[in-house]
């Protein structure tokens, strides 16, 4: 059955709150003609409607054009709640992989420098960066040290030698969100997290070496130090087992809060509690600890990538110009200020598969990016392209400073396994000049380009709708999949 969506402008569609009794606000989905058909057939619009039930939700239940069916929230969902109006926080609006995110590292290398070396690079990355299911990391910490890691995030990693202090400047929250509370984290989460700091993980997590193929905004590209033909590296990973356990622990806690605080939601995965409640406060402290764990993880992964490049080119990473462009979180809840009905409010913004996209002038941005807006890193599938965008003032006004986070899945994993031939896919990628390594054939097949929406269509919607601006497009050269 197809979902009926009301078109309200070229790139915006509405689910009126009359669609289901209990919806407190309308649902708004950003989409274009090309993406609409697959969205309407998916269960994701129903999930947009379900999110509109959350107490204290402000303006709309929003969805980005890479929206697809998740659990509880749709992937690509954004919802802000007002704590002063009984607004809630929901672990399902953040997800199990707390602070799953992406970072982009530039190099001073150009395509010519990689001639005949792509295979060597991908093999060194595959060998030296722990990836794949249940892999073990190099970061070994005691319980007391893990507490410091959770409080200080990427700052802890830099203090341990996994990078330089300039890296911190170019991370969302400067690589460590305040208010992490290790005492709100279960022993299980500590145990589950211990072996996994500094590991890529599996599923859609990856490392990708890319070449800048196109530049759309010369001024912003110059600020980032990027030009056509230059090589960059993208890292996609999150908080690993640590975050999964934190989420699981608090979905359980918040399940009990539904009756305690008389909250009605149509899906128990949307379990939540008022932001001001003790249960929510504990979750926020634990979620922030997991977010910091993820920033450590990506910082250590970047360190390993820098070391790998150093090995291949027999040069230090500094002389290869491997500076961090930016690091973004795309599964997180944050407290941010917005003007609602003429009044400044601090809202709890859930981004579940959505990226913060602050515009020029925002005080959260590092000085160097203050005039161009926040870098927004959008990975596509491994056979096509990825994008670097910048956030806009319009995103701050319309979507609580949020935009898309990727291409968005189109096919289920089992459909991909049924319809994609592994050997054929590897051959097709090689013909495009893309080398792939993974510990499992199924991971590659599940992540085949045909399992994803066309990234160009997603980017067209967010740029035409004014939520982000294109800076450059990157083409993959080699990929390490988890």
């Amino acid at each position, binding site marked *: 059955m197809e979902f009926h969506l009301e078109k309200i402008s070229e790139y915006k569609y509405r689910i009126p709150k009359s669609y289901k009794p209990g919806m407190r606000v309308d649902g708004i989905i950003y989409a274009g003609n090309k993406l609409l058909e697959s969205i309407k057939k*998916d*269960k*994701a619009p129903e999930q947009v409607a379900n999110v509109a039930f959350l107490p204290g939700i402000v303006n709309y239940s929003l969805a980005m054009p890479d929206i*697809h*069916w*998740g*659990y*509880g929230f749709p*992937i690509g969902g954004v919802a802000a709640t007002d704590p002063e109006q009984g607004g809630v926080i929901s672990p399902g609006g953040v*997800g*199990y*992989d707390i602070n799953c995110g992406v970072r982009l590292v530039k190099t001073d290398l150009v395509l010519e420098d990689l001639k005949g070396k792509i295979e060597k690079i991908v093999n060194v990355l595959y060998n030296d960066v722990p990836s*794949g*299911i*249940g*892999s*073990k990391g190099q970061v070994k910490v005691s319980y007391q040290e893990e507490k410091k890691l959770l409080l200080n995030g990427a700052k802890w990693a830099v203090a341990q030698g996994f990078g330089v202090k300039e890296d911190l400047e170019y991370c969302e929250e400067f690589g460590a969100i305040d208010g992490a509370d290790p005492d709100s984290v279960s022993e*299980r*989460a500590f*145990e*589950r997290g211990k*072996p*996994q700091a500094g590991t890529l*993980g*599996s*599923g859609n997590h990856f490392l990708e070496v890319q070449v800048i193929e196109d530049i759309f905004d010369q001024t912003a590209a110059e600020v980032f130090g990027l030009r056509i033909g230059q090589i960059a590296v993208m890292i996609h990973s999150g908080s690993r*087992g640590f975050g*999964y*356990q934190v*989420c*699981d622990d608090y*979905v*359980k806690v918040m*399940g009990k809060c539904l009756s305690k605080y008389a909250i009605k939601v149509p*899906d*128990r*995965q949307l*379990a939540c509690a008022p932001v001001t409640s003790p249960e929510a406060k504990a979750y926020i402290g634990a979620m922030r600890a997991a977010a910091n764990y993820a920033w450590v993880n990506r910082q250590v992964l970047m360190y390993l990538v820098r070391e790998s490049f150093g090995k291949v080119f027999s040069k230090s990473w500094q002389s290869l110009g491997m500076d961090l462009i930016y690091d973004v979180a795309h599964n997180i809840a944050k407290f941010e200020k917005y003007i609602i009905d003429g009044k400044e409010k601090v809202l709890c913004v859930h981004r579940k598969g959505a990226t913060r996209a602050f515009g020029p002038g925002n005080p959260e941005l590092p000085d160097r990016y203050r005039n161009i807006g926040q870098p927004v890193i959008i990975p596509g599938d491994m056979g096509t392209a990825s994008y670097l965008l910048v956030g806009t003032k319009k995103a701050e006004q319309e979507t609580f400073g949020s935009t898309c986070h990727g291409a968005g*899945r*189109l*096919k*289920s*994993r*089992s*459909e991909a396994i049924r319809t994609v031939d592994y050997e054929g896919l590897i051959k097709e990628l090689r013909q495009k000049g893309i080398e792939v390594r993974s*510990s*499992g054939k*199924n991971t590659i097949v599940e992540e085949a380009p045909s399992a994803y929406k066309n990234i160009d269509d997603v980017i067209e919607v967010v740029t035409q709708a004014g939520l982000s601006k294109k800076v450059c497009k990157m083409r993959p050269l080699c990929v390490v999949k988890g």
Partner: protein
Amino acid sequence: MIDFEFIEHTADVGVRVYADTSEQLFKNCAEVLFGLILDDRPKPDIEETVVVEAEDIEELLITWLNELLSLFFAYRFLPVDYDIILEEREDYKVIKSRIKGANFDPYQNKIKMEIKAATYHDLKVEKNDSGWIAEVIFDV
């Protein structure tokens, strides 16, 4: 062979599991879950008692499956054989399970799939004329 089938889900893995009794359903769901994670079933040589309580049978199933997942990923306990007693009252359900298993390190040995958690989304636990059915979506 456990009687089960996959449910199509865009991003995650859904399963529909069948059984004759509610106890068997819990056991089958656990076996399907760990069948997704790995093929090996080493000889069990340790035993764990896992007791989980909930207000309804759906919550009980998810809590139990997630308990087993975290015992595996946090403490490397791979469940192999299950001895289950399910007690049900109006608003209180409890599962008392004695599980024989083996020490298995998922960070040293190759596994097929890392499952983050069993979710409540589209969850079903039902009894009909031919037995019990559960539908569970796992976040992968």
